[in-house]
């Protein structure tokens, strides 16, 4: 059971290994707070939709299963949207249309189709938790790099007076704009490929 949880975080990480859910990953990762909020929202939707799909799987006709999954996912996304709008309006504003866009996040539909529809409820919940956590970790990592180098802050707290727009060294604001996002994810995926190649070469 534990391996269903672990694979999503490392070996089958949805963003870095499977290259799913790239749009929110790059768009949201300007601040660590946004990344954690987005990750939590997506994880909630993943777990709930996985559980429901796996529980209701046998009642869903095979031919119309994809539209059914989409309706299930959209329902939970609407729940998240309303809760966030009510309790964290600032975060809701910052994440903007990327909260409703969780509906078309390929990670969630992908897990419903590839895992939850063929496995039990508990395994599906763990799979959802693992995948959600893997997604959140990558988001947070990218956001951490971009926030620190791009605005010189961490969770909104300034790191050092001399590393600020008024200080001796100004943060590279290109990192919090679009090009920075592409460069950071390129280097992270590159680092993973490099490690994988190094592992293969090492004599056993």
């Amino acid at each position: 059971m534990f391996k269903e949880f672990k694979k999503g975080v490392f070996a089958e990480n949805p963003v870095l290994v499977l290259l799913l859910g790239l749009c929110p990953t790059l768009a949201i990762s300007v601040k660590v707070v946004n990344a954690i909020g987005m990750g939590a929202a997506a994880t909630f939707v993943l777990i709930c939709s996985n559980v429901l799909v796996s529980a209701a799987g046998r009642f869903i006709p095979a031919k119309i299963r994809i539209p059914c999954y989409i309706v299930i996912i959209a329902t939970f996304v609407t729940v998240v949207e309303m809760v966030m709008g009510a309790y964290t309006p600032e975060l809701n504003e910052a994440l903007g249309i990327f909260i409703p866009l969780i509906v078309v996040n390929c990670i969630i539909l992908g897990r419903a189709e590839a895992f939850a529809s063929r496995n039990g409820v508990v395994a599906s919940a763990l799979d959802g938790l693992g995948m959600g956590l893997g997604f959140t970790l990558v988001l947070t990592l990218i956001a951490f790099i971009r926030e620190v180098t791009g605005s010189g802050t961490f969770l909104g707290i300034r790191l050092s007076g001399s590393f600020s727009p008024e200080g001796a060294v100004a943060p590279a604001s290109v990192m919090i704009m679009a090009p920075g996002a592409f460069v950071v994810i390129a280097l992270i995926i590159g680092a993973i490929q490099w490690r994988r190649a190094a592992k293969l070469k090492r004599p056993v």
Partner: protein
Amino acid sequence: MSYALLFISIVLINNFVLAKFLGLCPFIGVSRRRPEAMGMGYAVIFVMAMASAVTWAAYFYLLAPTKANVFYRIMGEGRTPADFDFTYLQTIVFILVIATLVQLVEMFLMKMVPALYKSLGIYLPLITTNCAVLGVALLNIKDFSRLSPAESFFRTVLQGLGGGVGFLLVLFLMSGIRERLDRAEVPPALKGVPIAFICAALMALAFMGFLGLVK
């Protein structure tokens, strides 16, 4: 802002892929060869423009609390339009409308224009989960729903069309770059997706130069 300027700003400055991060999966997934990229791009223009128009109608006549709301017209006696505010159903309604629309377009093309279906057909099912399509529908409502109906409809369709054209442009450029990259000497660790992302970063940087066009 005139319509021409609005169109330019949607295609170049607020490009859906490079500035708004919408539709990245097909941007990385099908940009390996040029014919494929073009096919996907045309299909996206088509679907985005149609989806914009249809979701606008769904929002305006079914969900929004206005006098034009169909439910208000039928059952509105003694009630105000505010009693018929269904905007919280927006996400579910939009995704269903888009999925149905894509399915209908696919069936229509298969029956009526088989040649076009052969070139676009395989990309159409993928478009349902392309976040640029749902994204443009949501952005239209966010940006234009406060304008007068005619004005907002016109801008909505323009944004749908412009978003699609911007997507095609970037996909076309990217596929050209990647065909060249196949023969270039790339550090082994960066081969494939990472170098594509680095090219995307350079393109995004270049597209930021268009910022001065509209002010």
